[in-house]
């Protein structure tokens, strides 16, 4: 049976692939018999380069880990260094960080709207949501100076305070987004063809959740209420009031509903943050970065990104260079073993949709 199967190389040059990776499919007709991922097209060896940078220079490498969602990585690095060096950051910095993280989450989910619908052939959705994502990037640009790469949440707080009138801008953008989300629902979730394409497709069985380390929207789409923001609250998430949406079904449709609800929760969180944000300092002074020696030790911090749990293991040996930095990405476990596990038996038309709904992010896998 395997002998008659034809091999199809999906990627690296393929419009349906999220990021620069390859999936080698053996198909019989339209049904996939076996799948084998091949990654490594984006390997830049960050963790090797950080052995040659000092503690502040390696911070600028951080946001390059996962391009669609850069802020959780910066947050991880800042918190790792702070916990190694026992830096206490002011309250206002924590609130600003939470606001930036949630804005980044909204931007990521809008990017996901585009990818999911583009993989299903509904290109109008992609045009709309990426056009609206740019308004969030404008907020980032005014706040940090960069559209995609921010380098904003550095060890010791954030790099600069909120500009004048920034709060009103954020609120206007959120109001606009809430209006647009209704249109998205009408175009996407109320669409019978979209439901036909997604319901029951890309099913992640319950028994493979533990052994594959499934996290994030995929886990919540399987009906398990797990989120790093409530499991071990990291900035001021324990003072905020928000829900963790879950769905039964564990297919693309369930994950889509989870992400749809997460955007609304993020908007709610940002509103609370802007209300409760205290006055005061936004940064604690860090020692001179040229000769900043972080005391020896190791730590592991985790954060919840739009694709799930991202963790960061940092080791310092008391020198001006980091000893070892190791990122744990959500896509690192989703896009390789889990994808190879659930692809056989699926239709070849659904591969890119499944990859999008698993939150595949190729640069995060290879780092």
């Amino acid at each position, binding site marked *: 049976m395997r002998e008659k199967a034809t091999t199809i190389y999906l990627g690296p040059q393929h419009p349906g692939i999220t990021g620069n990776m390859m999936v080698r499919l053996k198909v019989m007709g339209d049904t996939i018999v076996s799948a084998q991922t091949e990654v*490594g097209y984006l390997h830049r060896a960050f*963790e090797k380069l950080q052995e040659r940078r000092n503690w502040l220079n390696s911070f600028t490498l951080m946001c390059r880990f996962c391009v669609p969602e850069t802020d959780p990585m910066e947050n991880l690095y800042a918190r790792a260094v702070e916990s190694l060096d026992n830096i206490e950051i002011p309250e206002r910095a924590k609130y600003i960080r939470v606001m930036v993280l949630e804005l980044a989450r909204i931007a990521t989910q809008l990017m996901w709207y585009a990818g999911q619908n583009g993989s299903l052939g509904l290109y109008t959705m992609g045009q709309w949501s990426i056009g609206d994502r740019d308004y969030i990037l404008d907020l980032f640009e005014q706040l940090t100076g960069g559209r995609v790469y921010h380098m904003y949440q550095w060890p010791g707080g954030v790099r600069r305070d909120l500009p004048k009138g920034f709060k009103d801008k954020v609120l206007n953008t959120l109001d606009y987004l809430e209006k647009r989300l209704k249109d998205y629902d009408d175009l996407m979730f109320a669409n019978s063809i979209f439901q036909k394409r997604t319901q029951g497709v890309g099913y992640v069985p319950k028994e493979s959740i533990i*052994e594959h380390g499934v996290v994030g929207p995929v886990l919540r789409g399987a009906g398990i209420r797990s989120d790093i923001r409530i*499991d071990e609250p990291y900035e001021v998430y324990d003072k905020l009031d928000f829900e963790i949406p879950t769905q039964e079904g564990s297919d693309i449709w369930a994950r889509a509903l989870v992400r749809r609800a997460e955007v609304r929760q993020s908007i709610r969180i940002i509103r609370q943050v802007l209300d409760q944000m205290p006055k005061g300092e936004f940064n604690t002074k860090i020692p001179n970065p*040229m000769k900043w020696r972080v005391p020896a030790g190791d730590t*592991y911090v985790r954060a919840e990104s739009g694709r799930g749990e991202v963790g960061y293991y940092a080791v310092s040996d008391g020198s001006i260079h980091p000893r*070892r930095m*190791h990122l744990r990405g959500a896509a690192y476990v989703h896009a390789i073993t889990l994808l190879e596990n659930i692809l056989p038996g699926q239709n070849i038309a659904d591969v890119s949709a499944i990859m999008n709904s698993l939150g595949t992010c190729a640069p995060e896998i290879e780092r």
Partner: protein
Amino acid sequence: MIAKIKAAFPEAVNKAYDGNRLDFTVHKDAIPGFLSHMKEQLGFRHLSHIAYVDWIEENEFEIVYILWSPQDKVKLFIHTRIDRENPVMENIDMIWRQANTYQREMKEMLGIQFPDMVAPDEFILEDWDDIPPFRRDFDTLEYVNRTFWHRPGREDAQDVRETITKRSGEEIPDFAKKYSR
């Protein structure tokens, strides 16, 4: 929790930390039994991370398994050291399938051998015939100079600090002198 683990594995050495962190050091042969016991009995269901450090001074590799217990909300760090000369490690991808990916990366980046692991040879690198790149004795800049080209900079490119001192007459601190060109 510490007592439970101690009862099961008396030889495990633990290190005290505050917060929700448990820290154990286990010999490498006991790793699969230890991990499966943690997963099945003590509820550390989620393998969060497998990190690896190259301690070239002690001539050892360190592998850190980080588990997470959803109901107790506890992080468990399991350190183990293996020899750097002939690195061989136990395969655990029958406990957590995702460990297969981590082990492929370790095999490629440090050259650690996992005897009974089923996986393709190449993970990230392709046709790599140098020493495994994440060992600390692999000098990446030297490799770059040997393999690629650097674009020559402009001759009139000034060092930023010198330009600033020329303009404003400020003093360069001593520590910064050794960084300036």
